[in-house]
């Protein structure tokens, strides 16, 4: 149900490592929970992100929510297309709905996060709460 090649956080972000860059977005579960996302607040390229700190904000149905970075590092690229098309976060969260890519300070940081199977279990537990 969740893409196997990605890693997942308890705050419902996904992360993927390609050639030293880490791409981050929100999971399909988060997107469904939020429902229609109408605004996205994005950081600037070249800025810093800190592991566990908010790097973007989303608004859906009058509620503003934070998106947290799984790693510390420098922001390499920002998906500016989301500003005009925030619906991409709902429609294609693992593809065109990616949010930022980061050059991480340390390598191997994603090893601590859940794989798809573990995340699926985690979501089921969350739903049961």
């Amino acid at each position, binding site marked *: 149900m969740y893409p196997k090649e990605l890693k997942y956080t308890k*705050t*419902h972000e996904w992360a993927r490592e390609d050639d030293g860059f880490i791409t981050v977005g929100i999971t399909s579960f988060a997107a469904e929970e939020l429902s229609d996302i*109408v*605004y996205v*607040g*994005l*950081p*600037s390229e070249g800025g810093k992100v800190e592991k566990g*700190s*908010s*790097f*973007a*904000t989303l*608004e*859906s*149905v*009058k*509620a*503003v*929510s*934070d998106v947290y970075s799984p790693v510390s590092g420098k922001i390499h690229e920002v998906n500016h297309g989301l*500003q005009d098309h925030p619906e991409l976060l709902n429609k294609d969260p693992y593809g065109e709905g990616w949010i930022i890519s980061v050059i991480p300070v340390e390598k191997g940081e994603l090893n601590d996060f859940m794989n798809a199977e573990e995340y699926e279990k985690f979501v089921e537990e969350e739903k049961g*709460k």
Partner: protein
Amino acid sequence: MLRKRRENEPHALLFSQLNEVKAAREWRLIPFGAYSPSLNMAIDEAIFRLMAENKLPATLRLYTWNPPALSIGYFQNTESPLITEYLKKGYPLVRRPTGGLAVLHKDEMSYSMVGTFARDGFPVSKQEAYKKAHESVRKALSDLGFEVNLYQEEKLWYKGDLCSSSWIAYDIILGGKGKIGGSAQRTNGEVLLQHGCISLPEEVNRDCLREKVVENFEKIFQIKLKQQELTDVELSLSKKLVKEKYEKWDWNYKGGRFLFLGRD
């Protein structure tokens, strides 16, 4: 002798257990006050931030605005003609940490509630929080003889940049007048800040309404509200947020869409 025997009876034990449950579901009630637009937003954010760090008890605050002011949503664009019109009339503007649309805080009562999801009787979801808080206000107004309902349509009805002209499920509707109450939210996934505003019907007694709102929050959330002042830490963070954020042109006029300020 009779009392002693009763204490040993099963129902007496149950009663004492119930008291423990009640104690666990105690929220703070911050005393009512009228504050500046920037301080009102700073206090709500300070409670929210410190709740996230320290797991404080859930908190309800009833307040109003002095001077009357226009608050706008986190992402709202200040270049809207409607917002410009209010600014020309001389209303100060403050951007909220929460979403939603512009609200004129005049002849109104505001509230904020902050808590950790599913803890101490705090709702498990944003939707439940919205519905229960509005039901508490609806019941308070109804107890005072007003004909009020909660909007029942699931679909958003949107007609402009003002909160009062955009209706969503559970908004507060006064018979013959339209929407008089709505709320907006901010969450970090664990803690929720929800604040909202009720435009007061002219004939309402404000003190009575506040009492009724407190009474109905207690009934509907099944909690006990205990009056407590803001802590020194909350007050000093509020003052800092006034200076560094809510009195700043960049925050108020540019805001979340154009300017991401990190963990604001």
